[in-house]
């Protein structure tokens, strides 16, 4: 039935109505009425709501008829047994039709030692994108430290800003802040109708001093409004900020609570990606490497389309881990890749048309040998909080469980394997660079050539060849160009994107670099 429906996956009729399996006919009727009030096409005009409404009716038709319900219960018994083996996530109390979870194994063995376990979330937005683009309030925070002079960084920055201006709408408002070790408000948020004044301000940029980000964020914070549309702050920098990281992160946390999203773009080879990752990750944003205008264009366009047609202001994932469970790594893999702080709530930013949030978590489960066989063991519980542009947030609870028991299992689902493999590559690259920086050249070389082997195993021969070459260069002159480091990191990071997005960006860049 609902198997083929994209957003619903393995959700059954009880889950659709949000009632327990033993619900009385009265409870089912009440839940149906409630669902109709929420999902009827006359009330909720989004196409997704319509699809879901049809399922609600279908569910009610079956569950309200004692005979049909009995037959359905029997069928459900059987499929739940087979699904258990198939790696479909047992999402308990899944009143959330927007959340689909795939796990590495839904049956885990009761081992005396800790074990790794993976979950991949696919989360859809509860609301359709707007028909008209939303008015953005956008801030560009521009690094004007003297180092911007080199390697054509300033001219690349200007080209990218011009590209941003090209894709903003007259109803958007844009503010400009420039910073070195001080910050200067160049332009308050101004309607983008008059593009010339922005270009003028940009051309008047004088390079001086060092990089200190927190001042600039404070200036933005002082005049940041809460508009009818998304509030977005983009940081462009080529340097490392020293001493004011804590302040910057504190501002980012406040922004996350207000639904302000912050993205960062690094220029050149000496910017601090770990810090910017953290900063942007806290707000639901992402960090990108500005390699060239051709590489930046599809990223700028994707972001602006997402913000113009944003379906929510922000998604916050609140969660609580069960005792003994750890999360080793938490990555957002769509719509943009970001390394997330494992701290509830996690801000996930927004999605545009045709986009969903994708998240991979690597768990460490504690020793489970004391657990009685065939227990449903809760790994984490929480709720999704979708913050709209107006009105109160919409929350949906979720729970993630595993079945503890003995016995053979099926292979992990493909989507989980794919995601974990990309994560493994990303980590290999990180480990390789770290080994090199610590002077363990041979190990670095080994790790990078493992990465190259993995890439070529999956048919990414061009990238595999590049990585292999880097590994060989390491051996020869014992140094790794910092620019190559950035290219390695963001090259493998991009692989974590959904395959269609990755391909689209890669092709766009290749086409434009040629011309």
């Amino acid at each position, binding site marked *: 039935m609902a198997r*083929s429906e*994209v957003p619903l996956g393995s959700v059954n009729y009880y889950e659709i109505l949000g009632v327990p399996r033993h619900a009385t006919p009265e409870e089912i009727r009440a839940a149906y009425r409630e669902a109709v009030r929420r999902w009827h096409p006359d009330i909720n005009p989004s*196409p997704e709501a319509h699809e879901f409404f049809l399922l609600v009716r279908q569910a009610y038709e079956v569950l309200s008829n004692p005979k049909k319900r009995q037959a359905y219960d029997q069928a459900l018994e059987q499929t739940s047994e087979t699904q258990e*083996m198939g790696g479909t996530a047992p999402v308990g109390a899944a009143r959330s039709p927007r959340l689909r979870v795939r796990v*590495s*194994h839904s049956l*885990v*063995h009761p*081992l005396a*030692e*800790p*074990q*790794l*376990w*993976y979950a991949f979330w696919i989360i859809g937005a509860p609301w*359709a*994108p707007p*028909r008209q683009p939303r008015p953005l309030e956008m801030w560009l925070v521009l690094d004007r430290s003297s180092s911007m002079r080199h390697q054509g960084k300033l001219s690349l920055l200007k080209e990218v800003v011009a590209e941003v201006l090209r894709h903003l709408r007259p109803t958007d408002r844009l503010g400009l802040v420039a910073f070195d070790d001080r910050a200067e408000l160049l332009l308050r948020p101004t309607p983008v109708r008059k593009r010339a004044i922005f270009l003028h301000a940009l051309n008047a940029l004088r390079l001086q001093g060092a990089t200190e980000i927190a001042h600039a964020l404070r200036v933005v914070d002082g005049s940041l409004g809460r508009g009818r549309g998304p509030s977005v702050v983009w940081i462009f920098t080529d340097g490392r900020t020293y001493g004011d990281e804590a302040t910057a992160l504190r501002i980012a946390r406040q922004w996350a609570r207000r639904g302000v999203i912050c993205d960062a773009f690094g220029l050149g080879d000496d910017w601090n990606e770990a810090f910017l990752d953290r900063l942007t990750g806290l707000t639901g944003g992402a960090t990108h490497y500005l390699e060239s205008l051709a590489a930046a264009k599809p990223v700028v366009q994707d972001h602006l*389309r997402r913000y113009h*047609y944003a379906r929510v202001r922000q998604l916050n994932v609140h969660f609580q881990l069960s005792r003994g469970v750890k999360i080793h790594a938490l990555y957002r893999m769509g719509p943009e890749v970001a390394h997330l702080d494992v701290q509830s709530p996690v801000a996930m930013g927004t999605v*545009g*048309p*045709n986009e969903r949030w994708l998240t991979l978590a690597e768990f*460490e*489960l504690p020793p489970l040998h004391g657990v009685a066989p065939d227990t449903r063991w809760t790994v984490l519980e929480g709720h999704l909080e979708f913050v709209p542009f107006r009105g109160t947030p919409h929350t949906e609870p979720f729970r993630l469980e595993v079945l503890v028991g003995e*016995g*053979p*299992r*099926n*292979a*992990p689902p*493909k989507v*989980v*394997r794919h995601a*974990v*493999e990309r994560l*493994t*590559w990303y*980590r*290999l690259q990180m*480990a390789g660079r770290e080994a090199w920086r610590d002077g363990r050249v041979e190990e670095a070389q080994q*790790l990078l050539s*493992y*990465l190259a*082997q*993995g890439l070529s195993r999956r048919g990414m021969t061009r990238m595999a060849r590049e990585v292999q070459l880097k590994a060989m260069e390491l051996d020869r002159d014992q140094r790794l160009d910092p620019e190559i480091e950035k290219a390695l990191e963001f090259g493998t990071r991009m692989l974590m994107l959904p395959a269609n997005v990755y391909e689209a960006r890669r092709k766009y860049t290749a086409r434009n670099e040629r011309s």
Partner: protein
Amino acid sequence: MECPYCHYHEMAGALFCRRCGYPLWEEVARVEGEALGRETATRAAREPRRTARDRVRLRLPDGHVIALEGSGPWIVGRATTNFEPDLDAQSLGARHVSRKHARLEWRHGGLYLIDLDSTNGTWVNGKRLYPHEPKRLRDGDWVRWADLEVQVLLPTPGREPEATAQEDSVS
């Protein structure tokens, strides 16, 4: 669990070796898959893909039926000197389609239509699509790209042999 490739001692439950990227899950799946009495669950051991995918057909207003070649995605549009869509709507009599008007593609076992921000729009059964918002197509749906309207004919889902028996108007 010891990695058979680099002999790194990886934690239980790991899918890939963190040291060398070796797909450890394949080993586990082989052992446990045999215990399940099944073929190995690796992709190579699986059946070939359904061929029904290859047959998306469109019925034109004049009753003619054309089949789309390959397994997609297909760009619907208007050919220019340096761009050739998979389905050239102009050659079918349309005059107001955009260069890259819409895209048809298979996803999750269904056929989806995505309007590529076309000037004159894409309609399904009389409702205009949002740009870039995929819309699942069902057999018999009427699709309109600007001034060209076609009916989508899909293979009946499922593996039952009757699906082929229903084929009557293969062009």
